[in-house]
C-alpha cells in the first residue's frame, strides 16, 4: 500500500523539480542553426580531386595516346563515312526494332494463346542467341540465297531484295540488329503498358472509346513515360552493338578504325580514341534527346514540369548568391 502512495507523492512533486539542464536560463531567440561540420567529406573530396587531376594530366601528357594523330584521324573522310554507316544502321534498327517490339508486346498481351506463345518464344529465342551469331547466320544465309523475297509462302512474292553487295550487307546488318532489338524492345514496351493503371483502361472503355483510340491516345502515351528511359538504355546498347556489323563486312565507325589500324599499326591507340570519342558524342546526343522526350511525356504526371538544365543552373546560381548574402549578413 505504501508503494503506490510513494509514487503518487513523487508524481505530485515532479513539477517542483528544476527543469533539465542544457537549456539556457535566458529565453532562446530564434536564430540560424549552426550546421554540423563534416571534415571526412572534405578530405574525401580533396583526395578525389587529386586523383582526377592526375588522370587528366596522364591523359594529356602521356605520349602513348598520340593526341596529334588523334587530331589527324578524328575528322578524316574515311572515319566520317564509317560514322555515317553506324548512324544509318543504328537509326533503321532502332525504328524497326521499336515497331517490332510494339507488335510483339501487343501479341504478348493479347487474349489469343497462340499470339502470346509466339511472342514469348520469339523473345526467348532472340534474347538467348548472341547478336554476333544472329548476324553471322544471316550473313551466310544471304550468301546462300542471292534474293530475299517477302510474300505468301510457296506463293507470289510482294517485293524482293536483289541488291548490290554493299546494300545487302547493310540489309543483313539492319535485319540482324532489328530482330535482336525487337526482342528487348518488346519487354520494354510490355512493361510500359502494364505500368498504366487499370482504371485508365476501364474509364476509356466506359466512355465507349474505340479500341485503337484507347491504345494510341490513352494508354500508349502514358506508357511512354516509363518506356522512354528503358528504351533509351536499349538504344545506347544498340548504337554500340553496331560495331559488330564489322563482322558482316560492313565498314562502320569501328570497322573503319580497325581497318585503318591494320594499315597504320602505329596509330591503333589514337584510332581507338577517335572511336571512343565519337561513341561518347552519340550517347550524349541521345541522352539530351531523352531528357526532352521525358519532359514532354511527364506533362500531367507531375504537378509541375521538371525544369530544363539551364533553368536548374540559373535557380541554383540564384540560391547560392542568396545564401552567400545571408552568410555575409550574419
Amino acid at each position, binding site marked *: 500500500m505504501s508503494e503506490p502512495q510513494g509514487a503518487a507523492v513523487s508524481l505530485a512533486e515532479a513539477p517542483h523539480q528544476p527543469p533539465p539542464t542544457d537549456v539556457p536560463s535566458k529565453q532562446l531567440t530564434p536564430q540560424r542553426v549552426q550546421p554540423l561540420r563534416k571534415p571526412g567529406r572534405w578530405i574525401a573530396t580533396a583526395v578525389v580531386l587529386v586523383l582526377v587531376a592526375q588522370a587528366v594530366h596522364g591523359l594529356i601528357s602521356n605520349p602513348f595516346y598520340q593526341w596529334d594523330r588523334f587530331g589527324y584521324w578524328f575528322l578524316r573522310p574515311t572515319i566520317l563515312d564509317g560514322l555515317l554507316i553506324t548512324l544509318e544502321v543504328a537509326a533503321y534498327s532502332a525504328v524497326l526494332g521499336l515497331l517490332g517490339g510494339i507488335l510483339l508486346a501487343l501479341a504478348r498481351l493479347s487474349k489469343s494463346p497462340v499470339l502470346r506463345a509466339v511472342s514469348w518464344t520469339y523473345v526467348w529465342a532472340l534474347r538467348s542467341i548472341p547478336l554476333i551469331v544472329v548476324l553471322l547466320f544471316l550473313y551466310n544465309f544471304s550468301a546462300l540465297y542471292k534474293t530475299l523475297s517477302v510474300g505468301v509462302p510457296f506463293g507470289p512474292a510482294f517485293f524482293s531484295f536483289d541488291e548490290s553487295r554493299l546494300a545487302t550487307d547493310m540489309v543483313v546488318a539492319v535485319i540482324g540488329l532489328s530482330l535482336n532489338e525487337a526482342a528487348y524492345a518488346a519487354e520494354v514496351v510490355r512493361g510500359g503498358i502494364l505500368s498504366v*493503371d487499370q482504371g*485508365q483502361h*476501364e474509364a476509356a472503355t*466506359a*466512355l465507349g472509346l474505340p479500341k485503337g483510340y484507347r491504345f494510341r491516345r490513352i494508354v500508349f502515351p*502514358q506508357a511512354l513515360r516509363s518506356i522512354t528511359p528503358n528504351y533509351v538504355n536499349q538504344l545506347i546498347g544498340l548504337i554500340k552493338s553496331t560495331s559488330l556489323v564489322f563482322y558482316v563486312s560492313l565498314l562502320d565507325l569501328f570497322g573503319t578504325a580497325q581497318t585503318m589500324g591494320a594499315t597504320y599499326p602505329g596509330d591503333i591507340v589514337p584510332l581507338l580514341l577517335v572511336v571512343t570519342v565519337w561513341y561518347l558524342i552519340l550517347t550524349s546526343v541521345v541522352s539530351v534527346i531523352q531528357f526532352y522526350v521525358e519532359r514532354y*511525356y511527364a506533362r500531367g*504526371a507531375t*504537378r509541375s514540369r521538371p525544369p530544363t538544365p539551364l533553368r536548374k543552373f540559373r535557380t541554383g546560381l540564384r540560391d547560392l548568391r542568396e545564401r552567400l548574402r545571408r552568410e555575409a549578413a550574419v
Partner: protein
Amino acid sequence: MTAEHGTTAEHLTTAGTLTTAEAAPAAVEVHDVHKWYGAHRVLDGVDLTVRPGEVTVILGPSGSGKSTLLRVINHLEKPERGYVSVNGELIGVRRNGDRLRELSERAILTQRSRIGFVFQNFNLFPHLTVLDNVAAAPVATGKLGKAQALILARQLLGRVGLADKADAYPRQLSGGQQQRVAIARALALRPGLILFDEPTSALDPELVGEVLTVIKDLAKSGTTLVIVTHEIGFAREVADRVVFIDGGRIVEQGPPAEVLDKPRHERTRDFLSRVL
C-alpha cells in the same frame, strides 16, 4: 412484370413521373442477374427496374455486390446469367430466337457511350488537360467535330463550376475538382443514364459537398441516376428510391422514408445502425 410496375408506380406518384413512366420502357431493367468469380457468388439473382428520370441509390455493406451490379449495367462486367436492358435495349447481347448472343465489341462500345459512368477514383486521363479529358469522348466516338466538342466541354466545365480550370492537368486539381471534371466528362456524351460508383468515397470530408451538389443538380435535371454511395444523408435528400443489397441479393427497396426510417428487414436495420 405488371405487378412490379404497379407497386413502383405508387411510389412515384409523388415524383410526378407516373404518366411518362407508364408509356416509356424502363430506363434500366436488370433481370435475374447472376455473377460469380470462381466459386464466389457476387450477384445472386438480382432484379431491378429503374424508371426514366428516377434517382436510385444503392446501399449495402462492402462486398455486397453493389459495385458489381453497377458495372454489369454498362457491361464492364459480363453477367453469368440473366440480362440487363437500358431504355428497352439489351446491353452487351442481342436476342436470337430464345437465346442471347454476345454483341460485337463495337456495338457494345456504342451502347456504353450512351451510359455515363463515374468512378470512385475519378480515372481522369492524367496526360490530357481537363478540357481535352471532357472533349475526348465525343470526338473519338464521332459524335461531334473537334471545335464543337471543345465548346461543349467548356460549357460542361462551367456547369460543374470549373470553367477556369480548363487548361490545368487533372493532378493539379483537388479530389473534389477531379471528380467534378469526371462528371463533366461523363456528361459530354449526353447520356440518358449516369451510373455513380461511390463518387465521394475517395474524397476528403470537406470536399464531399461540392461533388454532391453537382449530382443533386443532375438529379433535378431529369437525368436517370443510379448511385452507389455510403452517404445516407444524401440518399435521403436526393433519392426517389433506395435499394438495400446484401450478399448479392436485393434485401429491400422503396422510398427513402421507408427503407431508411422504417426498414422492414433485420439486415437493413443492422447496416443502418452501423453507418448512421
